[in-house]
């Protein structure tokens, strides 16, 4: 069969997962076709506004409100600027649906590289407990893997991409294979000492980032230059993106074919063989429909994008996906809850300022309900905070020479941080295909029915209260907090919908990210997650992808032999 196919494997999507799938599979000798719905962006030359100051950006960087209202009314909840707009989805051209009162912010990319071009770059290993909590607490279903299964793959990915951070030896936040951390500033160091002394068991540590702090000459990557313009695209290749890291690796094998503007609509399936037999896509530029075949398919179209493709793969006239024997496809959708912010003033240290701009600062790891203990705070799981200290430029009132002069000074140190909380997997937090509305490619719109529940809201109330307590306890003044409406999708950490599990009757994928219903189909992005932890998930997607690619390639060779 292999001889009749031009490609051994098709990778759908080119983000953190798809890029790694393409790299791993091509390096293992497979001929790979990578399809992405987005337009092509080449490393460096495609970063139109890299290094450009505000006065060289359209509209000085601010997307005009009428353009936001017409085309980026969801993307605006991401981090859009006119310098990175080309990397964000056009919400008018690619709509989705939700019912009244069930708002979901599906913030999508628009280019090859997916969200790897615009992600936050915070990179954490999950802890052993993150894989065990579902079982211990009887929540949803148990993960079919444990931390130990993933640890070597974390190491493999970290060494390749480069993760900066500090070794902390915390059992609840395992260390990565670190490059040196981005330094803390004088105010953060001061705060760390006081916070850790006054709140035993709580830590304030360096950010863990995919921004490298040592050159990687073998990958033509230069260490972070402290510009903090990551989302414009980084020509130094200082942060992990498909363009900077995995795409060059895959291309260098000579076995990669990359097709941009290829919108995958559905998968063909042979029920007797229980195999995917084809990938159907529409060329977004020409409207031409195509079908391509390969022995192996890696679906890495993003959490929700992959679920949509799976759901739209179904027998003619049926609403049930080929891949939904379990009835769990589209269920247990999660996102981190994170609209709580706490800030305050750090007194003193006026003689110091910052030189350079870090792309990430400091982290306060989870301290609630640790490893089997119940803090009796009215919710399960926990949250962490990402934050940092800065000296903003003074904002005087009035006008004229005196105002201009007063704006030549920095104010005192200010610290602010935001909480990221774990969302539990709920069976009825689900997405489905819209019964009547379709997009411009004929694919039914995805409809969201996802909401945060009591557990998440109580967690955020606690994060707000504890955040204020910690900042006050550490000696900050003018401590204030705010809480905005919590809308799922907002954190852009959506996960679940095609969860892993041991039992084909209650999960979509097995412990190798492989579909129970199709041995040649792997889903290695966020869709596979059976819980969400409270740390940023991309590093885990990458580790799971490399592990799945290793498994798939071994199977592929066994089948071919």
């Amino acid at each position, binding site marked *: 069969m292999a001889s009749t196919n031009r490609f051994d494997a098709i990778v759908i999507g080119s983000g953190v997962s798809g890029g790694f799938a393409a790299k791993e599979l091509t390096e293992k000798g497979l001929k790979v076709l990578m399809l992405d719905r987005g337009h092509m962006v080449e490393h460096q030359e495609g970063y139109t506004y890299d290094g450009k100051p505000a006065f060289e950006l359209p509209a000085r960087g601010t997307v005009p409100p009428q353009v936001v209202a017409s085309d980026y009314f969801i993307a605006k909840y991401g981090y859009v600027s006119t310098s990175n707009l080309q990397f964000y989805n056009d919400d008018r051209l690619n709509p989705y649906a939700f019912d009244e009162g069930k708002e979901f912010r599906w913030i999508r990319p628009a280019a090859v590289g997916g969200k790897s071009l615009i992600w936050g770059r915070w990179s954490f290993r999950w802890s052993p407990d993150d894989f065990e909590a579902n079982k211990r607490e009887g929540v949803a279903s148990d993960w079919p893997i444990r931390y130990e299964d993933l640890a070597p793959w974390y190491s493999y990915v970290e060494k390749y991409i480069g993760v900066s951070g500090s070794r902390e030896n915390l059992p609840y936040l395992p260390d990565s294979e670190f490059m040196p951390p981005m330094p803390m500033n004088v105010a953060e160091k001061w705060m760390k000492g006081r916070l850790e002394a006054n709140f035993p068991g709580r830590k304030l540590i360096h950010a863990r980032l995919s921004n490298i702090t040592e050159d990687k000459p073998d990958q033509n990557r230069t260490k972070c230059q402290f*510009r903090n313009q990551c989302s414009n695209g980084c020509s130094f290749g200082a942060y992990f993106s498909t363009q900077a890291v995995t795409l060059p690796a895959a291309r260098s094998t000579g076995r990669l074919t990359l097709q941009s503007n290829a919108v995958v609509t559905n998968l063909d399936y042979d029920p007797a063989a229980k195999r995917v037999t084809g990938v159907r896509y529409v060329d977004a530029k020409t409207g031409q429909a195509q079908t391509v075949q390969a022995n192996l398919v890696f679906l890495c179209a993003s959490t929700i994008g992959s679920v949509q493709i799976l759901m739209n793969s179904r027998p003619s006239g049926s609403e049930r996906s080929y891949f939904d024997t379990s009835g769990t496809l589209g269920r247990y959708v999660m996102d981190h809850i994170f609209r709580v912010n706490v800030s305050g003033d750090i007194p003193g240290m006026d003689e110091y300022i910052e030189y350079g701009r870090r792309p990430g600062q400091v982290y306060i790891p989870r301290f609630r309900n640790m490893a089997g203990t119940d803090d009796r705070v009215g919710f399960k799981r926990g949250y962490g905070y990402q934050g940092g200290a800065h000296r903003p430029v003074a904002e005087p009132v009035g*006008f004229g020479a005196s*105002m201009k002069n007063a704006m030549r000074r920095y104010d005192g140190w200010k610290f602010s941080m935001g909480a990221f909380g774990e969302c539990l997997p709920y069976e009825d937090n689900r997405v489905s295909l819209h019964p009547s509305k379709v997009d411009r490619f004929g694919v039914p719109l995805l409809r969201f029915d996802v909401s945060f529940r009591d557990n998440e809201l109580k967690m955020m109330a606690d994060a707000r209260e504890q955040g204020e307590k910690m900042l006050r306890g550490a000696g900050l003044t003018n401590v204030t907090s705010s809480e905005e409406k919590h809308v799922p999708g907002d954190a852009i950490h959506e996960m679940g919908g095609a969860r892993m599990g041991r039992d084909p009757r209650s999960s979509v994928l097995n412990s190798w990210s492989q579909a129970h219903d199709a041995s040649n189909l792997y889903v290695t992005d966020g869709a596979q997650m059976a819980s969400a932890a409270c740390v940023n998930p991309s590093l885990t997607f990458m580790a799971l992808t490399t592990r799945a690619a290793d498994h798939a390639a071994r199977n592929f060779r066994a089948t071919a032999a």
Partner: protein
Amino acid sequence: MIIDRRSALIGVAAMFGSNLFTPIARAAARDAQPIIDTGKPSVPVFTPVQHATMVALSERVIPTTDTPGAIAAGVPDYIDKLLADWSLPEERIPIVAGLDAVEARSKGDYKISAARATVAQQDALLTAAMEDRFTGGADFFDKFRQLVITGYYTSEIGMTQEREYLPVPAEYDGAFLYSKINKVYSA
């Protein structure tokens, strides 16, 4: 209506299989992503008198001192463009009304157009606005002041002369001595 028809057609096409909707997808592809207009202002926002007042007042908000002021930094052009194409039409209303009010006040108090008043008189007019001593004064002042500040500190002069432009710091020092710098960093 057109959109509804197109949606309906795509729905019908989807029922009959993918090849049928090729021409429709092609039509949809014409709906390209918007391009942000960076040319000349597409509409005149101000009358000549309003424009002259706007230019004069922008320079009073951020005057030329030991560094260039708002006019040299191109702030009036920025305001022309922003209000014409980079903001919602309703955002022009308080600015235009405020400029008219300032002009009327100048004519009343000084018997001269605001643009031709002395800088002391212009400062007095801006102060009257700031202190809301005429209808809509403070609202105009706050919004106009913010336009000038944004325009100035995102301009080349604002970023590279008034402030120090640091495009590639190359390193990070979180305990850098404040006494080593004379200007704040623009980026």
